Every structure is written in structure tokens, then in C-alpha cells.
């Protein structure tokens, strides 16, 4: 059982859902990312989504766009991201899912990618613009190393499509809470909970929901229906605000603690209908 499965198994025994924290690797600087990841872990993050910055982040809103630009300017490459994973692994068992657009991984090669991230201690990956139809070679490379392959489900996905996406997924299923790109929103979308309910019927995998969740109250609202909540832009906004400041780590830890407190739910997630 890899660290992701262990994490969800452990949480099932207790009284909280997973806080899945997204961090753009290399922002403000590749040397600092491991330290920031550990700060998020201290605050209560259960899983880290480590973002590989990309020049043309088609699914991202302004906050993560700017984070990617800063990270690229600081010289972040997939090779550096792999070093960062190694550095995190030296002192932590926090599960790490590499989050990337397809092209940097394609350029690196699926085989080399899977081999290197596995060896560095990553637990899985999600490639935003790799749909299941085109994923065969990737799946083979990842499966061979027991790495989780997380795919996305969306409000436009039919029940059949959700089943297919779940079938290709291991670790958890990532559900996109809202139409549009990543970013902070005032309220959670009306589409979020119906999607979680449909996904629940489509798979036994843990469900994680993301896009647009930035506040404790958003997370509280979805927590009864999911095993995990993914927060990205709210985290990267803090990184943007505190940049090189020595306070950055403490601020991230504080944010993670606040978010995690919204995830305490006594009973297991059942979709709220059972």
C-alpha cells in the first residue's frame, strides 16, 4: 500500500478528511519549496500536490499563473522538482503527488518520469491535460512503479465517463468543483455536491474535490461528501504575499491549520444521502 492509500485508510479510522495542499514548486525559489511543504504538513496537510510550473497553464487562473511565472524565472524544471521531492523525503513521509501539464513530462519521457519520481519518493501524479484516451503509455510506466495515477472528473462528465476516469485512477479521484480555471471564489459552485454524489456511485475510490476552494467554510460545506479537499490558489496567494519573507513558512502553516479545522467530520463520507 503506498502512502496515499495509507493516508486515506488512516483518516477513515479517525474523524477528519484529507487536506490536499497544492504548492507550485520553485515559487519563490526551488531551494525553499521543501521547507514550505513541511510547513504545510505541520499545519495539517495530509497530501502534497507539487505543481511543476508551465509556461502556458491553460487550466489555471491568475494566482497560479503568476506563481508559475515566478517559479520559471527562478529556474525551476522538472529535474529540479524531482530534487525537491527527494529533499522532502529526507525528513517526511508526506504523500507527494506530482501535478503537471503534459508537455514537460512528455519531453522528459513517461518512462524516465515514472522511474525518477518513484526513486525520489513521490507517490503519484496528475497530468492536467492528459485525458484517459491518450494515457496508455503513461499508465504502464506509472503502474510498473506502483505510482498512483490521478485523473479528473468534471460536472460535464457523464456517469459513464466518471466510471471510466475512475477506472484509470488510483489513489483518489479528483473532482473539479466548478466550471472555469483554478482560483479563489466567493462561494462554492452549485455543481460541486451533485458531482460528488454522482462520483460516489461511480467508484469506491476516495473522492477529492478542488478548484475554487479557498476558505474554511467552503471546505466545511464539501467535507461531508468527500474524503479530501484540495486547496491551491489560497496557498499560492500567501506565497505571493510573503514571497521572500521569513514569515512565509509560519503563514502557510497557519493557513493549513485553519483549512484543516474545516475538515473535521465525525462520520465517514457517504455522500450525505446514505
Amino acid at each position, binding site marked *: 500500500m503506498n502512502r496515499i492509500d495509507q493516508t486515506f485508510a488512516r483518516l477513515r479510522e479517525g474523524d477528519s478528511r484529507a487536506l490536499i495542499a497544492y504548492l507550485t514548486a520553485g515559487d519563490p525559489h526551488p531551494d525553499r519549496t521543501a521547507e514550505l511543504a513541511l510547513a504545510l504538513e505541520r499545519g495539517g496537510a495530509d497530501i502534497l500536490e507539487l505543481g511543476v510550473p508551465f509556461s502556458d497553464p491553460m487550466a*489555471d487562473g491568475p494566482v497560479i499563473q503568476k506563481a508559475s511565472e515566478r517559479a520559471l524565472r527562478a529556474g525551476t524544471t522538472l529535474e529540479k522538482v524531482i530534487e525537491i521531492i527527494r529533499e522532502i523525503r529526507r525528513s517526511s513521509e508526506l504523500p507527494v503527488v506530482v501535478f503537471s501539464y*503534459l508537455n514537460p513530462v512528455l*519531453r522528459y519521457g513517461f518512462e524516465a518520469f515514472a522511474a525518477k519520481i518513484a526513486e525520489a519518493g513521490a507517490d503519484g501524479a496528475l497530468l492536467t491535460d492528459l485525458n484517459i484516451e491518450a494515457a496508455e503509455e503513461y499508465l504502464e510506466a506509472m503502474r510498473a512503479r506502483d505510482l498512483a495515477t490521478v485523473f479528473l472528473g468534471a*460536472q460535464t462528465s457523464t456517469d459513464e465517463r466518471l466510471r471510466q476516469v475512475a477506472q484509470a485512477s488510483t489513489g483518489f479521484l479528483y473532482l*473539479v468543483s466548478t466550471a472555469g480555471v483554478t482560483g479563489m471564489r466567493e462561494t462554492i459552485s452549485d455543481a460541486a455536491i451533485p458531482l460528488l454524489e454522482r462520483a460516489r456511485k461511480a467508484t469506491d475510490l476516495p473522492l477529492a474535490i478542488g478548484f475554487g476552494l479557498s476558505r474554511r467554510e467552503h471546505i466545511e460545506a464539501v467535507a461531508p461528501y468527500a474524503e479530501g479537499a484540495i486547496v491551491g490558489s489560497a496557498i499560492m496567494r500567501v506565497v505571493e504575499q510573503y514571497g521572500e519573507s521569513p514569515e512565509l513558512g509560519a503563514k502557510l502553516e497557519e493557513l493549513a491549520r485553519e483549512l484543516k479545522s474545516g475538515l473535521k467530520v465525525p462520520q465517514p463520507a457517504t455522500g450525505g444521502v446514505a
Partner: protein
Amino acid sequence: MHVIENATLPDSLGRFGPYGGRYVPEILVAPLEQIEQVYFEARQDPAFQAELEELNRQYAGRPTPLYHCKRLSEHLGGAQIYLKREDLLHTGAHKINHCLGQALLVKRMGKKRIIAETGAGQHGVASATVAALFGFECTVYMGEEDMRRQELNVFRMRLLGARVEAVKTGSRTLKDAVTQAMREWTANFETTHYLLGSALGPHPFPVMVRDFQSVIGTEARAQFGEREGGLPDVLFACVGGGSNSLGLFHPFLDAESVRMVGVEAGGRGDALGEHAARFSGEGGAPGVLHGTRSYVLQDEAGQIALTHSVSAGLDYASVGPEHAYLRDQGRVEYTACQDADALAAVRTLARYEGIIPALESAHAVAEAIRRAPSAPGQRFLVNLSGRGDKDIGIFRENMPDLD
């Protein structure tokens, strides 16, 4: 409508060999499937084809002439040069061909709003035009740098009732405009059609845009046979995303004797960042950008490279996936023409034929001019994809001797 009856590509996943396909945020899979379904139904529907043909004839001004450049050919002293005059179409470029086709699909889907990206502004103008014609709301995304260098087209779009949104990320050119339009579409797909402006992006755009543009080659082949007899020896077209070139080339693909040359933007030089030559320049390699797998200008780490061309419509880091396939097959030859040569071709065509081409089209003209002297007895057919009115500002900057 000009359906390519025997086309076996793309396959059911939208792939041309290893290229093409669909690489998109999951939320766009269903909207793309809807377009695919509506398009493939429409393509078989005689009423749809008749409506499009009527619009092409009565609104856009088809068929466009096939014109023999006698003075230019004589001046060059080799091949005879012919132009397919897409520059004479309504709105001034071939882009109206795929805009009218897609507008009819928008109507079929019951949507009331379109968004589009544009580089040179010709696709934006054509989109704004069909929006006015059909009563759609229209927003066009355009890089800030392109808004500056194609300011006349920005005003034309506004005059036609479209909103033009400045894109201020990355290189502030076409690549960034496509990225932003895609982002917007992930939020608005329910009400809005993304009227993509070239034979690129996720399936079904490459096949759909190609089919709508194939009217160029179908007409040209018939006109050439009727008036000149036989087939041309070599076809030339500029390749940005690849729509005007595929439109000309596709109906000739089965004619083995016909050679085809796609001309990319060679910019200022060979180094990555100085050109937009995905096939013939440094840094082009298979990759995925904007939902399709094709040749992409990129660095060693798989980050998309910046590009340069004097021509905003060719200044793009990727290229339509069918071109990647045709290149690997060796069916089409790809070459690049530099900024200076394109500008020189503008002057030559203006002086010898009284035709001022768009800077994009001038790349194809330049390559034909370069090869003509050493090809006596051959007949060259060049796609003149657009007219140069929009580029007068750039011409003035680069031709100070005329002011």
C-alpha cells in the same frame, strides 16, 4: 460544402498518426464531443451544405479568382506564377471560410455567443463579422503586442460590435490569446462556442477547419484545370496554425504529381525565440500545446518557447497536427522565409501586379519568387490568403524610403 469523401484521417479520436487528438481540461471533453457530433451530422446534411454554399457565394464572395501573374512571371523569367485570390474575400482573408461554417454550427447548437482568439486580427474580424451577421455576442482575445501591431483590425472588430480583450501574459501574442480563450471557454462552454481560428487545437477543430477551408483547393483545382489545363506543379502557402495551407493542399493530396510547399515564419534568424518555424527552425519537436499533439517550439525542459515573426498571423509556437503528419509522410515540404524576404515580396507583388498581400501571405509569395527563376516550364500556384491593408503600419515602419 466541400467534404473530403475519401479522407481516412483523422481517426475516431481525432488523430493524424501520432498527432492531433484531444488534450484538454476534463470539463471540455463533453463540449468538444458535442461540437464533433453536431459537425459530423451537419457535414452529411444537404441543407447545411446548401446554406453554407449560399453564404459563401452571396456573402463572402466565392468563388475567388485564380489569377495568372504574367508580369511577375516574366520578370522572374522561370516558372509561371498563379495566385488563388483569397485576399478578395469579404473581410480580406480566408478566415471567413471557417467562420461562416462554424457560425452555422453555433446556430445548430442553439448557442448565442462566440469567443475567438486572433493574431493578425483577420480571424477576429471574420469572427466579429459572422457574429454581426448571425446576431451573436462576440468577444475576441488578442495579445497586447498584436493589438499594437494590428491596430486597424482591432478597430474593425469593435466597429463590428465585438469586444476585444487584451491578453497581457507571456509574449502577448497569438499563443497567449489561444491560452486565454481556452480558459474562458472552460467557464462559459454552456452558452458559448469557441470559434477557433485555425486547423489546430483539440479534435474536432483541426478536421472541421480543414474541411471548411478545403473550398480553396477544390475551387483552385477546378479553375486551374478549366483555364490552364492539367494541374499545377507546385503549391505554396504560408503556415501559421495551418488553415489556409491545408485548405489549398488537401484537395490536391491525391494528385501525386503536385508538390506542396508550406512556408513558415523564419523571423530574424535560426536561434530559438527568433522565429516561428516549428518544422524548419531550431527548437521544434513533437509536443502538446493547446489541446493537440504536434510540432511545438520548446526548450529542453518542455516549456513553450517564445516566437518572433513580423507577421502576427504566423507568430505561433505550434502548428496544426495534420501538417505534422504530412511532414513526417514527406508529402509536404516545409521551409521558412525570413521577415526581410516577406517584406521584399510585398514590394515585388505590389509593383509587378498591383496586389498588396498580407504579410502572412507574403511569406508564400517570397518562396515562390525565390524558386521561380530556376523552374522554367513549371506552374506555381500560391495561396494569397489575405490582403495587406491591415499591415500598412508595419510596411511604413519597414519601408521608410516610401514616406
